[in-house]
């Protein structure tokens, strides 16, 4: 038996720290049953670090094949006491890929959610944030490479500017020969096969026109734990179920709160190709066509700071006088909303299980006994609620839709389908032109990957 495997066995032993933590589970809420879906959290391992500066939160939902970030964390040029590593597993698997680097893991928690429950990354973020003991929480890819100055770069940026949310972009390489992960050199990842290298930085970092799509918001996001708790943590709304989600939900709300978003100009992560990296065959919640959640985009429009659905434990931490302590258990009660949401459903393709949708410029909301619609602009705080907001109420959505259409001038009503057709046609022409331009630039050797 390897040292790592022996260490795991000792952790699973009833007398070990991990098992003790599991039996000592104390929910933060009133009642354990009320705060849980599934069997409840189990600590395979629990951090003993007293006051780390940084807490790295890594996620898994029984899918990850490699956790090689842990190898690169063992090579960091800072004191190991200055950071802790938390792994949050959505189901019950103790991944063998983690066992290989278990000496680098401080907290390893299994949420033990039922197999029928689809994964929700935001719940895992909240568990990580709640359990973190560090001042700065870092949510990042667990299958990426980082240079030895990674942790130092994060800490020094926060010392320079505490009121910010920091992101690190990622170089991505599409070479199949680097899979399974074979510990390539950093230059290899940024060299042949790199799809986003642009003169020493990522292409996204060099772009200021459409950062939301050109930069990788999920690669690495760092924020002060107190700030994350102050905005209510990650949003556990059902729209974020599955692949369409990410820490950018929190970034947007942190920016709404007044923090500055900063992208590190010289520190990056390095990612090599692996199967299923683009979320193929995963359930997709509502998104903008390029896998950015429209629910998160709505938070920008509404200038919303708090989440639509807040985690109970995060709420308790937020409303307590001293929100720094980490609890022993984290609520998974919100999972009841999506526990059977995808039963027998086609898990691929865009959809929405939400009760709220935007139709013809009106927000249409399904409540317990009615459907209510009001104009989108009335939700803008600067528009003013004193303007006599018209509300359409009805028993069904079609009834409300008819009422909305009836309130519009006839010329506008007639023009709306024409606008739709023109949009589709003009976009198709634009896409064809873009495709042709890319082909030509590839032939001329002025574009494409390295």
């Amino acid at each position, binding site marked *: 038996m390897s040292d790592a495997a022996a260490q795991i066995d000792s952790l699973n032993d009833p007398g070990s720290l991990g098992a003790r933590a599991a039996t000592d589970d104390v929910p933060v809420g009133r009642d354990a049953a009320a705060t849980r879906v599934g069997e409840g959290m189990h600590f395979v391992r629990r951090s003993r670090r007293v006051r780390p500066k940084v807490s790295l939160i890594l996620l898994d939902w029984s899918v990850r094949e490699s956790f090689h970030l842990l190898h690169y964390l063992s090579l960091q040029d800072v004191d190991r006491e200055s950071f802790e590593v938390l792994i949050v597993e959505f189901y019950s698997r103790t991944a063998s890929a983690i066992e290989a680097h278990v000496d680098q893991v401080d907290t390893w928690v299994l949420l033990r959610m039922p197999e029928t429950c689809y994964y929700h990354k935001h719940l895992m973020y909240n568990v990580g944030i709640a359990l973190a003991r560090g001042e700065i929480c870092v949510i990042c890819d667990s299958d990426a490479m980082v240079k030895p100055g990674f942790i130092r770069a994060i800490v020094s940026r926060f010392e320079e500017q505490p009121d910010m949310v920091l992101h690190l972009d990622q170089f991505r390489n599409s070479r199949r020969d680097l899979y399974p992960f074979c510990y390539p050199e950093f230059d290899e990842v940024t060299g042949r096969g790199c799809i986003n290298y642009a003169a020493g930085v990522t292409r996204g970092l060099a772009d200021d*026109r459409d950062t939301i799509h050109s930069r990788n918001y999920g690669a690495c996001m760092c924020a002060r734990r107190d700030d994350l708790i102050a905005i209510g943590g990650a949003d556990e709304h059902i729209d974020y179920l599955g692949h369409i989600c990410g820490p950018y939900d929190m970034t947007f709300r942190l920016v709404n709160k007044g923090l500055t978003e900063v992208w590190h100009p010289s520190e990056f992560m390095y990612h090599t190709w692996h199967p299923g990296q683009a979320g193929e065959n995963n359930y997709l919640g509502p998104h903008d*066509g390029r896998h950015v959640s429209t629910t998160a985009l709505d938070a920008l429009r509404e200038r919303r700071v708090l989440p639509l659905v807040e985690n109970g434990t995060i709420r308790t931490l937020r409303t307590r006088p001293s929100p720094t302590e980490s609890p022993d258990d984290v609520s998974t009660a919100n999972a009841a909303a999506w526990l059977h949401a995808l039963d027998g459903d086609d898990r691929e393709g865009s959809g929405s299980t939400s009760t709220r949708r935007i139709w013809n*410029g009106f927000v249409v909301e399904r409540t317990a006994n009615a459907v209510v619609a009001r104009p989108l602009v009335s939700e*803008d705080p600067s528009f003013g609620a004193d303007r006599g907001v*018209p509300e359409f109420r009805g028993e069904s959505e079609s009834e409300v839709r008819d009422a909305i259409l009836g309130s519009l001038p006839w010329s506008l009503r007639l023009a709306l389908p024409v606008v*739709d057709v023109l949009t589709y046609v003009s*976009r198709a022409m634009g896409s064809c032109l873009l495709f042709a331009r890319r082909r030509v630039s590839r032939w001329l050797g002025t574009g494409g990957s390295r």
Partner: protein
Amino acid sequence: MSVRSSIVSRYRQYRTESAMLAAALRSLLVNLDYIHRTGRSATRRLVIVDSWREALLLRVLVLLRIARRCAVKVVTRPEQLTRVAEQSKDAGFLVILTLRVCSRHYQTVAALRRRTTILVI
């Protein structure tokens, strides 16, 4: 990724993005009408979009008196947005952004919204 799945994924992207854009334009037209009808008919409005195609369509609709009267400007960079928004504010315009402009330049928009009234539709 096979050629077939690549085509399927591109088609899905086109379909979803186009649907989003069409819905955004519908929203804009309906809400411009709503703003006009709720006491801001005298206010001069400036709609900021990020594509020439969208701007052209909007201008045609205004000319045909289908959309409520408004000025239309195209911005593609954050510094342009700051300049246009501040100039328009000084000129007494009510500045309206599409959600796509807001999401592309959300940091600039967040900073601007702390200083001035900007509606996002």
